[in-house]
């Protein structure tokens, strides 16, 4: 199997570092892709579940732009809806009518949520959720789960990160995932002080195995929040519409007060939403929170088309089924070469790790071997399966996986 080279990516990155901090910043930075020289840095085009880099290399994409791509790149129905809206108007002085249509559709779709507030990124709405919780309760403190990711504003990043001062995080209390006792203790230690509890539906940190909620964990959290007047906030930015079209809280059987959506919601068009219960609608209305492009109509039209299509094809089930087929095959191949490939999380957004090496160096090498043969795998982050991934993709991926394990076996015995 031919392995890829990245001459144009490298050259463009060199130029980019002169013009842009880090060359490529944030979660798209090449730094966590190890070794970086085995990965492409710049894309040229994309279609379905594939993308092509600037060197012309073709990849089956298992990161899906870190989540937004859910129906496939350049999806005909979504793009047609977006284009139709573009011709009608995008950023206009008055709010677009499609905003109400989208809100109506989402309120009907997402269980227990009775209003929607639109923004651009996941971090916009997790931050808004905190502000709504504080407005509603008149309290300052927020409890979050250690290792949880809710965006990049200072309170979300934690002490010791660049640009974060102690005051930014003085009202943040961190508990361990799945440790209901710790949450109960924190609540008891801060009576009448906690505004909200924010968490992802299940624990999907980077660089670590993902963890599903323990039996009754969410139900106990929900009960305690209701008893103590704490606003429960689900950050469904990553999981949203890959677990359950009604919201990931329905997958795990509980009812939060606020839910944050982004990523899969618009199939790549920039949009996010905070949704909430009727009791919090007036509180959300009090918070002044907006952005220059938050009323752009094109992403709203795209989101409406995306959600309708996902519902029509039962997207979450399709993605989970494809993921399961792929992952079962990969684990079997790993075993046949004597490796333990551990899969955690839900099969539509799995996290994988070769457990035979605690340092992850072996796993990083394997991911790189697969990537330079055309299956784009990261080693530090959960992957994403889309509804566009096909049987053919799975088959080709398994061939690549087999060859990559063969390379490792030959090298390390």
């Amino acid at each position: 199997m031919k392995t890829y080279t990245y001459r144009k990516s490298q050259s463009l990155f060199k130029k980019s570092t002169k013009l842009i901090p880090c060359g490529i910043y944030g979660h798209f930075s090449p730094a966590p892709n190890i070794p970086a020289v085995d990965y492409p840095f710049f894309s040229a085009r994309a279609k379905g579940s594939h993308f092509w880099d600037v060197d012309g290399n073709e990849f089956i994409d298992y990161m899906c732009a870190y989540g937004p791509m859910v129906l496939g790149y350049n999806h005909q129905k979504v793009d047609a809806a977006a284009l139709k809206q573009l011709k009608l108007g995008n950023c206009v002085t008055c709010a677009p009518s499609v905003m109400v249509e989208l809100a109506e559709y989402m309120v009907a779709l997402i269980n227990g949520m009775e209003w929607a507030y639109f923004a651009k990124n996941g971090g916009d709405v997790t931050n808004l959720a905190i502000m709504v919780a504080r407005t509603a309760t008149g309290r300052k403190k927020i409890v979050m789960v250690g290792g949880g990711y809710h965006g990049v504003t200072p309170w979300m990043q934690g002490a010791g990160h660049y640009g974060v001062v102690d005051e930014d995080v003085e009202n943040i209390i961190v508990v361990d995932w799945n440790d209901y006792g710790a949450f109960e203790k924190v609540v008891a230690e801060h009576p009448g002080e906690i505004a909200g509890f924010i968490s992802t539906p299940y624990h999907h940190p980077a660089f670590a195995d993902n963890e599903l909620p323990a039996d009754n964990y969410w139900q106990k959290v929900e009960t305690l929040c209701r008893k103590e007047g704490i606003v429960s906030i689900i950050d469904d930015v990553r999981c949203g519409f890959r677990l359950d079209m009604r919201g990931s809280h329905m997958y795990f059987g509980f009812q939060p007060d606020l839910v944050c959506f982004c990523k899969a919601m618009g199939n790549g068009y920039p949009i996010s939403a905070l949704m909430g219960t009727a009791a919090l609608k007036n509180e959300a209305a009090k918070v002044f929170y907006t952005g220059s492009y938050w009323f752009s109509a094109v992403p709203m039209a795209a989101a409406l088309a995306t959600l309708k299509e996902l519902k029509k094809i039962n997207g979450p089930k399709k993605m989970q089924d494809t993921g399961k087929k792929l992952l079962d095959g990969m684990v079997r191949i790993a075993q046949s070469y004597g490796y333990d490939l551990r899969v955690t999380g839900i099969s539509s957004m799995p996290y994988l790790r070769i457990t035979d090496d605690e340092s992850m160096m072996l796993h990083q090498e394997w991911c790189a071997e697969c990537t330079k043969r055309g299956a784009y795998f990261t080693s530090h982050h959960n992957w994403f399966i889309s509804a566009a991934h096909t049987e053919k993709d799975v088959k080709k991926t398994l061939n690549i996986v087999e060859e990559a394990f063969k390379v490792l076996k030959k090298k390390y015995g």
Partner: protein
Amino acid sequence: MSSDLIKANLNLYAVLQNLEDIVRYDPEINSLAKNWDVVIQFSVRGGPKAHIAFKDEVCRVVRGTYRGPDIKLFFTSPAHCNRMFDNKGNPIPLKGFTKIGFLTKEFPKLTERLEYYLKPTDDLLKNKDYLEMNTRLTLNTALYAARELALLDPVGIARAAHIGTGVVQLRIRNGPSAYINFKNGEIEVEKGDWEKPMALMEVKNLRIANDLFNGRVDSFAAVAAGDIVVKGKIMMVESLSVLFDRIPIYLS
């Protein structure tokens, strides 16, 4: 924790340890040290303690108190200790008047050499031997300083709390290497290689390493080009970088 105290810890535990390598690798100093057989104790009231032992052409800088040193140098406070390292003050000798000749004539040659190697100029760095020594000392100073900052500096403590367990290896290909071991709340630094590190940062050559340590290289570009390889639990390396970035706050 006062900044004077943190700086005194960095001076005694991160800067002073470089004397070991100067005695080992600098031919002139090595020749001078042939007949040295002396232990100097540094004690800071309310602060760190370390001793330097010279014997058989080897210099060892060790944390803590030595029983029966030949020379005892006392500092009334961490700030007093820092003044000496900044060439603005002198220690109070409590013991070792018979070794005053060593203190006033021989030992200063060593400390002058330390200053020489730690204050590079573009011209000096053109010399391969100087480049290697400066890079070696900078690497070691950074790692030993990181240990102190992880234990004493508020930001360092916050980052170190999440760094995890295991060894982070820093290595320059065909050059010096050192590692820092985070183990059950304890942190140890050693020169050389650890067999199975949890995270590794390897730099392609001395020149790139020197440029990296002195802020003259775009580290992102270097990683992307493969001039710097970071692998394993890279979050450990990232946390370590935050500690490195704290060093200039205390040491200029």
